[in-house]
């Protein structure tokens, strides 16, 4: 384990960014989101949760797949270049790291999503333990340990120091490249920090939600529950929950008319949107209740049924704090799970 003084972080960032792109939480217009590091940006590592998760770094909200151009009567097709340079994502949290695992099951299994796979191959994730977890956090429910983020490198802020520990080969390689800035550290301060984090997590209001009723055997019972009709009513049918979610992976493919050609791109889609399941024959989900139900059934029942029980919610709590109508997956878990 290594350590570096917090006030020397700009040097660390410059060192990492010297050889590759570095993405990290940046404060802009009063909000914190992931962005590309330059010397001018305002890095914000105090905000526990960025508005959007770091998902964008691997699965951007919008990306061009290929472009078609017509010049002198000839049509040319230009596939978008896959990421082939290494990059670092610094500052993710344990929940967001687990979010990537959820995406891996979807995009890295056959048929492999080459855009996502290229980014996963070239990206190194440095994740920070959650010094002060918040009331909206419930990662513990999904077996995630906020004190021990399972990324390429795990890091901890304790007092004026950042502690750094490589956990994978990629993490070792990154560490090697910036090692000159570090000093060797002993683990006792970090062990104490971990205990404190875990003690706080125990006390959080949503840390002990009961998921036992969300099993594949109960699929039809949960699907047919009359409670959906009551729960969906305040839903505004916006896409906030979907777009701030670290695990939502649905996208739409669209064409953008550039005037002299077409850019075929994909962009995040939301099952909350009315045209989400629009197909040539029509739309099989015709009401907002059905759309609302889909989102939570997918997270809590369908996905785990197809992925060895792994839920596709990681308890980051972004939807809890961002839903305009104060609806969220916690309320759904409690209601359907029989707690409320």
């Amino acid at each position, binding site marked *: 384990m290594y350590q570096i003084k917090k006030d020397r972080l700009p040097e660390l960032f410059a060192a990492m960014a010297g050889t590759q792109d570095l993405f990290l939480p940046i404060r802009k217009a009063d909000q914190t989101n992931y962005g590309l590091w330059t010397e001018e940006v305002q890095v914000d590592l105090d905000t526990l949760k960025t508005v959007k998760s770091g998902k964008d770094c691997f699965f951007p909200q919008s990306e061009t797949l290929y472009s078609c151009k017509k010049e002198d009567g000839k049509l040319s097709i230009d596939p978008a270049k896959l990421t082939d340079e290494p990059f670092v994502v610094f500052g993710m949290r344990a929940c967001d790291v687990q979010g990537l695992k959820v995406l891996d099951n979807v995009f890295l299994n056959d048929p492999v999503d080459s855009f996502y796979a290229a980014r996963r191959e070239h990206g190194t994730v440095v994740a920070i333990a959650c010094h002060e977890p918040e*009331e909206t956090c419930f990662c513990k429910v999904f077996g995630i340990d906020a004190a021990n983020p399972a990324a390429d490198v795990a890091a901890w802020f304790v007092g004026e120091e950042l502690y750094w520990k490589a956990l994978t080969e990629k993490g070792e390689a990154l560490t090697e490249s910036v090692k000159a800035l570090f000093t060797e550290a002993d683990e006792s301060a970090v062990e104490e920090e971990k205990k404190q984090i875990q003690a706080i997590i125990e006390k959080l209001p949503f840390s002990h939600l009961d998921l036992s009723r969300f099993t594949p055997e109960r699929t039809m019972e949960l699907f047919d529950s009359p409670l959906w009709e009551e729960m969906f009513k305040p839903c505004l049918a916006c896409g906030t929950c979907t777009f701030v979610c670290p695990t939502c992976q649905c996208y739409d493919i669209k064409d953008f008319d550039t005037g002299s050609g077409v850019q075929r791109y994909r962009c995040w889609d939301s099952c909350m949107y009315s045209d989400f399941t629009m197909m040539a024959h029509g739309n099989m989900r015709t009401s907002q209740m059905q759309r609302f139900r889909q989102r939570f059934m997918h997270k809590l029942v369908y996905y785990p049924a197809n992925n060895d029980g792994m839920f596709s919610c990681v308890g980051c709590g972004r939807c809890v704090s961002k839903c*305009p109508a104060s609806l969220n997956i916690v309320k759904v878990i409690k209601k359907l799970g029989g707690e*409320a």
Partner: protein
Amino acid sequence: MQERLIERAKELLSDGTVVRVLGWKQGDLGYNPEPAYFNSPEELKDFVYDGFCGANLSKYMIAAGKMEGNTLVFLKPCDTYSFNQLIKEHRVNREKTYIIGVGCKGTLDIDKIKNAGIKGIESISQDGDTLKIQTIYGEKEFPFNDALLERCTVCKGKTHQVYDELIGAEEGEEAGPAGNRFEMVEKLEAMTPEERFAFWQNELSKCIRCNACRNVCPACSCLKCVFDSNKFDSAQKANVDTFEEQMFHVIRAFHVAGRCTDCGECSRVCPQGIPLHLLNRKFIKDINEFYGPYQAGEDTDSRAPLTDYTFEDVEPGIVTERGGKH
């Protein structure tokens, strides 16, 4: 006041005046009540009315008006402007609505509290001008007025524009902190076009196109929004280029111009904290200057400035005439 609201709602349900109540339901954190329907007196045990009931329930009445039987809805003073405007646009059914106008001391913005570094919030209570906040990291205090939503710092007034009865709303009650709601618009007007462009670029580039602003907006009540139609190029779910990024919000502001009551819901719900209300206020300010003071939602039958024509109307050249200040 919450108890009085519950008691009255129970009476109106029991005597058959209404078959359902639209209000706010206790959340599972100290600050997240949700809009909810209550269909029986028993269900009202979860009813809540406090500073975090910012949600304007007027737009829900479009759907409620199509349900069988009458609906009781609780509206805060500024919510009633939205409801009135929806009456004017024939979007809600006044006959099937029983409105209790509720008094309002201002609604709160949890993000202001959190941005001050207060985290791990377990409960929030009010003690005079101070919010007492119990957190996992100890008890904190926060001034009530500093936690107000922006819209409440420039409160339109405590007078309900439409209601069947009032509870907790005293006649002639003073409005909340009365800031100048056009202050920021004036600042933007005073900027050079480049500065103004940079301001909006910085803000709008945060937009994730979640459509929360549109979906919450009582003036956005089209059955099918042009941005949801896959028949047009306008149907985008992402900011493909900067044109798209800038145009969505500007087009929306144009569309609600003259109908926007300045309820502030767009800015309240934006997950990226974009001050969308400033676009609407620019229109409101211009309408006030060009056609005389006008407040959408103040009445249900007047002709609105932008849907009326008089010989005195300003000519299109007005922008140039006032020295290109736009």
